């Protein structure tokens, strides 16, 4: 696990639901096929209303037309991030587009679980309402050694909440690696053995 995550911020508001993260019409593509899964990057966050996309100004697309990778790699969100459906396509599409961390005030629980158990990215929480502090395009650095996020564009640093008990799964990589580490499933069980 990387102890330092650097990237450009993409800022969203409250209650970003999974239909905004990946509209249902796109859920037909394979997540395991290397070519097909690129569509998820292409359509990641495409359901966000345009005036809410890339705050504070809005009208900033997350990915350029047709591209499956975004120049933004850290999403900053408000309350209840990822509410709605259990579709794992939601954290998956963000990872495919290049997201390496999300920092929100709070999460809907299935999205949070999926992010951790699937090892897509680290879902951080911050008591400060960063949506008011960070602008889309700001240059961010997360330091897990001291549990902070620094906005290098404004030279401000904020404390992140502890990751709590899920840190063990995050450090292992995903729920399967965690279960292998703890002996719940055999470590030789992978890849057809």
């Amino acid at each position, binding site marked *: 696990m990387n102890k330092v995550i650097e990237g450009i911020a993409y800022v969203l508001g409250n209650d970003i639901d999974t239909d905004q993260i990946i509209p249902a019409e796109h859920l037909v593509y394979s997540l*395991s096929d290397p070519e097909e899964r690129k569509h998820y990057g292409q359509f990641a966050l495409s359901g966000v209303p345009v005036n809410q996309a890339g705050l504070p100004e809005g009208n900033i697309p997350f990915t350029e037309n047709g591209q499956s990778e975004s120049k933004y790699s850290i999403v900053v969100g408000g309350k209840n991030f990822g509410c709605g459906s259990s579709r794992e396509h939601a954290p998956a599409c963000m990872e495919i587009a290049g997201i390496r961390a999300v920092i929100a005030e709070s999460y809907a629980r299935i999205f949070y679980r999926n992010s951790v158990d699937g090892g897509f990215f680290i879902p951080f929480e911050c008591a400060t309402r960063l949506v008011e502090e960070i602008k889309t395009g700001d240059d961010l650095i997360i330091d897990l050694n001291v549990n902070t996020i620094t906005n290098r564009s404004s030279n401000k640093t904020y404390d992140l909440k502890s990751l709590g008990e899920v840190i063990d799964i995050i450090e292992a990589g995903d729920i399967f690696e965690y279960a292998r580490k703890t002996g719940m499933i055999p470590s030789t069980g992978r*890849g057809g053995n």
Partner: protein
Amino acid sequence: MGMTITEKILAAHAGKDSVRPGDNIWVNADVLMTHDVCGPGTFAIFKKQFGENAKVWDRDKVVIIPDHFIFTKDTHANRNIDILRQFVQEQSLPHYFDPGTDNYKGVCHIALAQEGFNRPGDILFGTDSHTSTSGAFGMFSTGIGNTDAAFILGTGKLWVRVPETMCFEFIGTFPEHIMAKDVILTVIGDIGVDGATYRAMEWRGDAVMKLSMEERMTLCNMAIEAGGKNGIIEADDVTLDYVRQRTDAPYKIYHSDNDAQYFFKKTYNASEMEPIVAKPHSPDNKAKVSECLDVKLDRAYIGSCTGGKITDFMAAARLLKGKKVKIDTFIVPATREVEQDLYKEKIGGETLMDIFKNAGAYLGDPSCAACLGGPKDTFGRAKDNQVVISTTNRNFPGRMGSKQAYVYLASPYTAAASALTGHITNPAEFINN
């Protein structure tokens, strides 16, 4: 110290005498349900992690109910059904309900109940957030992602954080024009879309226990719209009557202790409830129907796991009988069984199917259909800036297929009354006259 019904079921499935909210425990699953949207991804992870030739932990506990993108020409969607078929064949799974055959059912949460997979005291995980629906049967049920589902396929287990429980009690009798949908929209409006995050929502009180299983399912179905981990109602004779007609499988009835600890408790007087809508674009954007009478509508939609059960259509038909709708009205039974019941159930000698046809409504095949938008050729999918009144569960931006559409969530009574007038209408006008 006592435990809630949710705590007791989780403890029993973790082999423990007791658990407390916040405990992280591993529980054994009784049923794992998946469908066409999440099944293919789940199976791919299962094979990657446990091996190409690995077998699922218990064939009899895996239930696959395709329901989302069924009646479409979308080639990727149809390919995904083929992936389900292939996995079912490889694993010799007995509980699969194949589209295009007599065995096709429709919306998974309602099919789970109708096919006898909801059993008091069990734990059911499903790759769909509305899996909370099954909690109406006095069981623990919750939605999970592909990764967690693949983990269960291989191990039969999943880690769960024991949720705190919020108790919602309704005493007295609901007015005749009030449905469970009004009740859940009231509660979501009161506590907000994250008001129950990571918590159990337990429904209690004599008004709740007078409800049919279908209405109880509506209450538990939308627990997720308040962020809840599960919704739950203790099983009683109404539950057992339903369950015994559907399965011989064993069950166990749990009750919350009198000294159980609740994180939150609120008591409502059932007789004071009013018809409620959730205005665009959030299920907690609560308003009384009486405050929205000037909202002009383009279409009405009655369907989904939330509002496409036989009791929902009985309610709608009661208002539509002998009248014509003023706006496009879409009727989508949740399952084939519900659809068949539309031909059997009658009001004043006329079948529900005839009532809907004579009223000028459009009838769709059983599936999730336009509740979540879906492929472009989905029946009832919202277009442009249409204003829709819908018995479904979510009105997030774009949810029903158009980012510009305005969706009002409402009960089947309110949706039917509004279909007759073309604007949001209080069903009491039709019921009490």
